[in-house]
């Protein structure tokens, strides 16, 4: 049965909750109640971040691994604001440019003791932040061998996605468009192709800018979306988070429902017979 999540503002059930007519998204053996995953970066305040995440209905929440600032030890890490019992923390390896660095960050994250999940991200180019497919694949193999549940961020490239699946990744996360760009889904064909060929969940990660982007992305049939900047940089992140929850659910439902065919010509939707003289 569907478990509906109450919206923190209206107290009504919100989208993002599992639907009775849809199988739950399962990653690494864990069934998730929401197909929307969100990040915790770049919010104007921790309070705003917490409220936006609540409004998103997300269960999986990404965090980054960084040095403690020893001059500001009063500022606790993000875990001070997020209950690891309420959310499945997904540490990322953001900022890593080599396979070795990514593996090191993943191991540090796991040593915190909350999860063996990691969002593997190895960047190949500072300007575009596009992934290094080769380094990502090498890191993925090492982390899988080390017992991690690896969710691998990658280009919207079928061959790389297939190799990451073969390497044992629990999910493959192709981009919609570059990180932080908000350009939306630039190549639906590639995303559909990846989804059609992989057995593990495909989670589109990066590039979604607004609710319509989320809906279009989910309409390709992918299993979920991960986003951060679209919420954090919205004028009203909490409201945008609610919009994204609805859009993710709407896109999923539209995909399951199956769209009407596109036609070059108009076709009347009212009967032609029975018109008055």
């Amino acid at each position, binding site marked *: 049965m569907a478990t509906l999540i109450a919206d923190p503002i209206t107290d009504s059930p919100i989208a993002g909750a599992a639907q009775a007519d849809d199988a739950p998204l399962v990653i690494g053996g864990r069934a998730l109640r929401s197909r929307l995953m969100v990040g915790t970066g770049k919010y104007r305040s921790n309070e705003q971040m917490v409220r936006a995440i609540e409004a998103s209905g997300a269960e999986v929440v*990404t965090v980054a*691994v960084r040095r403690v600032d020893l001059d500001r030890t009063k500022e*606790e890490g993000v875990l001070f604001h997020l209950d690891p019992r309420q959310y499945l923390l997904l540490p*990322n390896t953001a900022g890593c440019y080599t396979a070795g660095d990514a593996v090191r960050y993943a191991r540090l994250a796991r040593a915190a003791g909350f999860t063996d999940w990691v969002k593997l991200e190895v960047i190949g180019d500072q300007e575009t932040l596009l992934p290094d497919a080769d380094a990502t694949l090498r890191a993925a193999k090492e982390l899988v061998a080390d017992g991690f549940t690896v969710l691998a961020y990658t280009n919207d490239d079928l061959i790389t996605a297939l190799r990451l699946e073969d390497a044992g990744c629990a999910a493959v996360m192709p981009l919609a468009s570059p990180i932080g760009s908000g350009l939306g889904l630039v190549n639906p064909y590639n995303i559909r192709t990846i989804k059609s060929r992989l057995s593990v969940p495909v989670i589109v990660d990066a590039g979604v800018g607004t609710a319509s982007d989320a809906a279009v992305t989910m309409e390709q049939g992918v299993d979920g979306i991960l986003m951060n900047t679209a919420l954090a940089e919205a004028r009203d992140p909490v409201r945008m988070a609610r919009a994204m929850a609805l859009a993710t659910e709407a896109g999923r439902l539209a995909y399951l429902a199956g769209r009407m065919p596109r036609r070059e010509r108009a076709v009347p939707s009212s009967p032609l017979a029975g018109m008055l003289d």
Partner: protein
Amino acid sequence: MAEMITAAAAQVRVNGDEREVPAGLTVAGLLEHLGLHPRMVVVERNGEILRRDTLDGLRVEPGDAYELVHFVGGG
């Protein structure tokens, strides 16, 4: 005066910076000395990640290099 500090202090590297800390600390004591809550921090010493339940029993040695990390906001 410098000798007195040397006698009571150990020189270690923490998050890229040289620091003098009281001699004879455990790693858990080092975190406390730095004002950190051990549960929120992961400790890497000389390139090796330390298990949290061992921090009480491990001594800080002069010349150790520590990386102290935690989770921050990210996407």
